[in-house]
């Protein structure tokens, strides 16, 4: 193997060689530099290969043929190899990216770039403080030079501020080093670590100075204004190197120094790190400049890794996996994002809308954000999982809370940015067309996915990128050039095939959910045939969601469950974001969902007691003091998906603004993921008490309130899709109520709602979507009289609302019947009354759908409207058939589930003799009801036709407008504010209190971020003072004041 020393030698040698070249030999100088960087990368890659495959072991390289402490030495181990590889590749790619700039600047700039890369490698390789100092100084000087590559004139001041800060750091570092030497007689890090008691006894201050100097090189929040200025103004290729390469190097240096300090100094590292992670992410919320935002994010990520380094005593042999996963994900993503920013002209976040129309670059953007946030299947996800589990195993709950809170803030501003880039009006300046730059960015994307694959393989849990459903979903990324028709057929075939393949292994409960999610998903996808073109981005997102759902219902361990949960969340986020005006709603969906996912993660971690392979069955064994907390965290997490009241504000916008065929997916199918989670939770943990309060009782109340508020809100909507969306909140409230009753019939009812809600909500969303497509509006008062023009849609809506309202003879009545039986057995009278009241309210809004859209007067502008497109109508008609079938023979689906539920609640099972279903309170015979209702309906209808046979048909122009010309349609239309009297009476219940509550929290975060970031005055001297103040404060905190 080539000695690691050559990494330094090649870099240094090439830099000197550049000095000998003539100024005019631009291409030659550039070629030499690239060759040197490639050579350095190859050496590192060789070492990674050898050390990772286990063929070699870590090597110490001594200089001058003498052992330390008489000479300086380097070490090449696995961590060093990986880090130098990452540093060298960053340098190489940045050099490629900088091609044009370097041709202008010439060999001097190239030499500085080589020195920077070489020195960053040196920081990683060296084992003594002398060299550590030298390499740090080289990095600082090279930074001072490379900052000036930028076209931004302000970079000059930024570079100077950086140098001022590095002077202060140098002073601290040198004084610390020399006193540490005095205490131990050596400058070798390992030598010092052996006698660390000496350092810490006599030279605690000396170690502190060294350590804090290295920490300051990490640009710790909040003493880092100088670094942020550099990030903002430097050339993006250099900012990439600064964030990825020198950040990694400094982190490794901190790790090495902590060998000397030992475990007593670890909490300090954790403290500084986590403050940085949360603080920098908070400040980033208020950022408008993309590169400064990335700077804040860099500071935050490096803080997180420092915090992980501080926890290494409990991470054991998984330490490198966890810290490395987060570090490499950060390095790749941050470098990638900085490189991407170089293609964009404007410097605001909205300027990234220039990416629209460049699907590959958008894919790169999304990949980088997912890498940073730590979403599956990227390394940060595996690392986060093991980290949180390990922390919870040791009871470090506060740290978990801070990490997850910081991660949520970060996801919030990153996805806000992504949403703006995709949905705002496209920026006028085009994206730079440089094939070099694009190649560099795509290499980073490939590296990110490659790392995901490697980390999956190294993970103790399964490799997500090898899971068939996810592979299938990601496969659609490659198929993007194909037309919608082909991709849609493939998607449908995939869903059905996966269902059929997995069929034998499903238990009855899983079967119900799988049928709804996979077969149901395939049915809804039929509607997607009506779109034309290629529909870029739709299929990967949709299939990612379905893959997540498919994996969720069969997950056996907590990791698989959580990974599936996050996958379906990401997929559905991208799906929802596709809607025309869905930017803010997709964001709030994502934030709520991720917050919910983090609660689920925390809940699993608490339950797992340090075991990353924790199974869902293990939830049963969780013991008393912990169990209710686990229950609470998981339940709240799942309720973010079912949109229980309080956590529901994302739903109306997200569902209403989504595309026509997406609304039924995210409403009819996605919501069931939350219910499935609750099922799993309740089956495993039963009911739990916290401080004497029965938690399921609270859920009962939440369910009842959701039903009431959701229905009430729905009744007051003018927008048909919003109405349906609010109604979902109510419907999920019913299901939650049923589950929380914790008895046989309650659960059966919840399952009934799973099936029913899927069918009628998907059907209604499709028909209303079709109507909205034809009429060009979703406001119901702008429609009317469509019954003759869109008869099939009318039938679908009619059947849908009959089913949903729970009147005989359709399946909604079955649900109601089970429900009434169920509540007769419960003791909770008050929530029961709420649920009863919300029933009639449902009639109010359902009535409007049929009355305002299809009955009444046809609008003049709608005279030429046709029936909805075939592919929208077809699934609706299938749903009608399903509803009929399910109404006639509900036993087909429910019987086996009924038996299945008996394991958990033996009492209260229904009798299924013949076609009649019997309970303790009575019986229900679907077919006779159907016949009875059918006969009554037919005779009444016949009678109506008979008595009206001579009636004159009123045409629209038979009506006199009484000389009034309707000025604004909503003021004169009777269907506008239809339920005004009810609103007067009950409107106080629909005040958007919850929305205001969350908005206030968000405003508070933003306002404090905006206020506090003024700490960074921009004055280099103030920054230096802050630096020293930071040192003093940390010292005082460390010594306990």
């Amino acid at each position, binding site marked *: 193997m080539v000695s690691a020393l050559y990494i330094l030698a090649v870099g240094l040698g090439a830099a000197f060689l550049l000095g000998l070249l003539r100024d005019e030999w631009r291409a030659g100088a550039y070629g030499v530099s690239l060759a040197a960087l490639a050579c350095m990368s190859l050496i590192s890659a060789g070492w990674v290969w050898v050390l990772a495959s286990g063929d070699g072991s870590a090597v110490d390289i001594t200089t001058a043929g003498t052992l330390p*402490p*008489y*000479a*300086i030495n380097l070490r090449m181990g696995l961590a060093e190899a990986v880090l130098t590889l990452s540093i060298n590749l960053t340098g190489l790619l940045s050099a490629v990216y900088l091609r044009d700039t370097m041709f202008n600047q010439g060999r001097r700039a190239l030499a500085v770039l080589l020195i920077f890369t070489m020195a960053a490698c040196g920081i990683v390789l060296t084992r*003594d403080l*002398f060299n550590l*100092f*030298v390499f740090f*100084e080289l990095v*600082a*000087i090279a930074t*001072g*030079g490379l900052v000036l590559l930028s076209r931004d*004139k*302000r970079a*000059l*001041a*930024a*570079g*100077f*501020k950086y*140098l*001022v800060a*590095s*002077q*202060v750091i*140098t*002073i601290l570092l*040198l*004084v610390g*080093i*020399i*006193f540490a*030497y*005095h205490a131990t*007689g*050596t*400058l070798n890090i390992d030598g010092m670590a052996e006698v660390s008691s000496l350092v810490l006894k006599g030279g605690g201050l000396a170690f502190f100075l060294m350590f804090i100097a290295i920490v300051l090189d990490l640009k710790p929040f909040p003493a880092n*204004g100088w670094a*942020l*200025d550099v990030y*903002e*103004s430097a050339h993006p290729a250099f900012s990439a190197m600064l964030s990825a390469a020198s950040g990694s190097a400094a982190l490794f240096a901190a790790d090495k120094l902590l060998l000397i300090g030992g475990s007593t100094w670890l909490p300090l590292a954790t403290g500084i790190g986590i403050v940085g992670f949360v603080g920098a992410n908070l400040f980033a919320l*208020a950022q408008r400049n993309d590169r400064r935002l990335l700077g804040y994010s860099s500071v935050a990520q490096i803080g997180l890794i420092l915090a992980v380094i501080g926890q290494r005593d409990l991470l054991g042999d998984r330490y490198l996996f966890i810290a490395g996963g987060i570090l490499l994900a950060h390095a790749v993503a941050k470098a990638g994002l900085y490189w991407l920013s170089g293609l964009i002209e404007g410097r605001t976040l909205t300027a990234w809308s220039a990416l629209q129309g460049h699907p590959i670059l958008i894919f790169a953007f999304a990949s980088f954000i997912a890498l940073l946030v730590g979403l599956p299947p990227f390394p940060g996800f595996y690392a986060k999982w093991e980290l949180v589990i390990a922390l919870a195993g040791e009871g470090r709950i506060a740290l978990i809370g801070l990490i997850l809170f910081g991660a949520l803030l970060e996801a919030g501003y990153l996805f806000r940015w992504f949403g703006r880039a995709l949905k705002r009006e496209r920026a006028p300046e085009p994206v730079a067309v440089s094939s070099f730059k694009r190649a560099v960015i795509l290499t980073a994307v490939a590296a990110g996915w490659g790392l995901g694959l490697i980390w999956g393989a190294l993970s103790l849990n399964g490799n997500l990128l090898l899971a068939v459903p996810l592979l299938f979903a990601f496969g659609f990324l490659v198929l993007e050039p194909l037309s919608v028709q082909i991709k849609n057929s493939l998607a449908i075939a995939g869903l059905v095939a996966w269902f059929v393949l997995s069929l034998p292994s499903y238990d009855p409960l899983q079967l119900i959910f799988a049928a709804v999610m996979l077969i149901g998903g395939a049915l809804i996808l039929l509607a997607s045939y009506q779109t034309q073109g290629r529909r870029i981005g739709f299929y990967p997102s949709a299939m990612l969601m379905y893959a997540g759902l498919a994996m969720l219902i069969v997950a056996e361990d907590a990791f698989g469950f959580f990974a599936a949960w996050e996958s379906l969340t990401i997929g559905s986020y991208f799906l929802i974001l596709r809607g025309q005006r869905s930017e803010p709603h997709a964001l709030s969906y994502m934030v709520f969902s991720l917050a919910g996912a983090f609660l689920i993660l925390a809940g699993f971690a608490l339950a797992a007691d340090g075991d990353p392979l924790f199974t869902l069955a293990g939830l049963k064994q969780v013991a008393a003091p912990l169990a209710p907390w686990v229950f609470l965290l998981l339940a709240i997490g799942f309720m973010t998906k079912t949109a229980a009241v309080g956590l529901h504000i994302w739903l109306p916008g997200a569902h209403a603004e989504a595309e026509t065929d997406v609304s039924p997916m995210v409403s009819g199918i996605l919501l069931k993921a939350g219910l499935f989670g609750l099922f799993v939770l309740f089956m495993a943990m039963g009911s739990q008490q916290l401080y004497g309060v029965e938690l399921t009782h609270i859920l009962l109340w939440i369910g009842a309130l959701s039903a009431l508020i959701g229905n009430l809100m729905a009744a007051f909507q003018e927008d048909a899709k919003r109405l349906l969306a609010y109604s979902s909140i109510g419907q999920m409230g019913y299901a939650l109520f049923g589950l929380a009753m914790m008895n046989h019939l309650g659960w059966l009812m919840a399952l009934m709602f799973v099936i029913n809600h899927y069918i009628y909500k998907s059907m209604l969303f499709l028909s209303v979507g079709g109507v909205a497509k034809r009429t060009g509006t979703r406001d119901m008062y702008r429609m009317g009289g469509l019954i003759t023009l869109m008869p099939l849609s009318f039938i679908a809506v009619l059947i849908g609302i009959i089913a949903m309202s729970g009147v005989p003879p359709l399946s909604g009545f079955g649900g109601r019947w089970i429900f009434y039986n169920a509540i007769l057995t419960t003791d909770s009278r008050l929530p029961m009354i709420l649920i009863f009241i919300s029933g009639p309210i449902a009639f109010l809004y359902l009535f409007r759908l049929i009355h305002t859209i299809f009955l009444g007067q046809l609008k003049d502008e709608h005279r030429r409207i046709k029936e909805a497109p075939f592919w929208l109508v077809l699934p609706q008609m299938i749903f009608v058939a399903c509803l009929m079938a399910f109404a006639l023979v509900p036993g087909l689906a429910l019987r086996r589930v009924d038996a299945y539920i008996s394991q958990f609640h033996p009492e209260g099972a229904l009798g299924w003799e013949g076609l009649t279903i019997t309970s303790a309170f009575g019986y229900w015979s679907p077919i006779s009801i159907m016949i009875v209702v059918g006969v009554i309906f037919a005779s009444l209808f016949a009678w109506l036709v008979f008595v009206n046979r001579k009636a004159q048909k009123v045409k629209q122009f038979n009506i006199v407008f009484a000389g009034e010309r309707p000025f604004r349609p909503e003021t004169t239309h009777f269907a506008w504010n239809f339920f005004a009297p009810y609103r007067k009476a009950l409107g106080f219940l629909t005040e958007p209190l919850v929305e205001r509550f969350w908005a206030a929290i968000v405003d508070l975060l933003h306002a404090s971020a905006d206020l506090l*970031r*003024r700490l*960074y*005055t*921009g*004055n*280099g*001297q103030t920054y*230096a*003072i802050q630096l*020293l103040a930071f040192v003093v404060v940390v010292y005082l905190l460390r010594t306990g004041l």
Partner: protein
Amino acid sequence: MAYIAMTTGFVLILIGLFGALTNRNILRMIVAFTVANTGVNLVMVAVGYMHGRTAPILDEAVPVAEAVARIIDPVPQALVLTAIVIGVGVTALMLAYVYKLYETKRTLDISAFKDLKW
């Protein structure tokens, strides 16, 4: 003797830092940093010698086995030299910056360069 040198060194460091943090003129800041650097070098010389040890020459007088406890490590000496050299380099770079900064705004006041903030 060593204490005098060390005390002087620390006094110089403090003077330097005080100067760098209170003078708004960039040139004065740089001069102050060089004062502080000199102080650091003085401290290193003062502290780098360990009492009762001998020069790092391995021969009969100092066998290799006992060397660790008996000789002065030569690396700190190299460290001082390197630190001086690097100090010169950084000072030169900062002076070049000052020149450029002065060209852009025609002032040497550090508080004039606040375009980047927050």
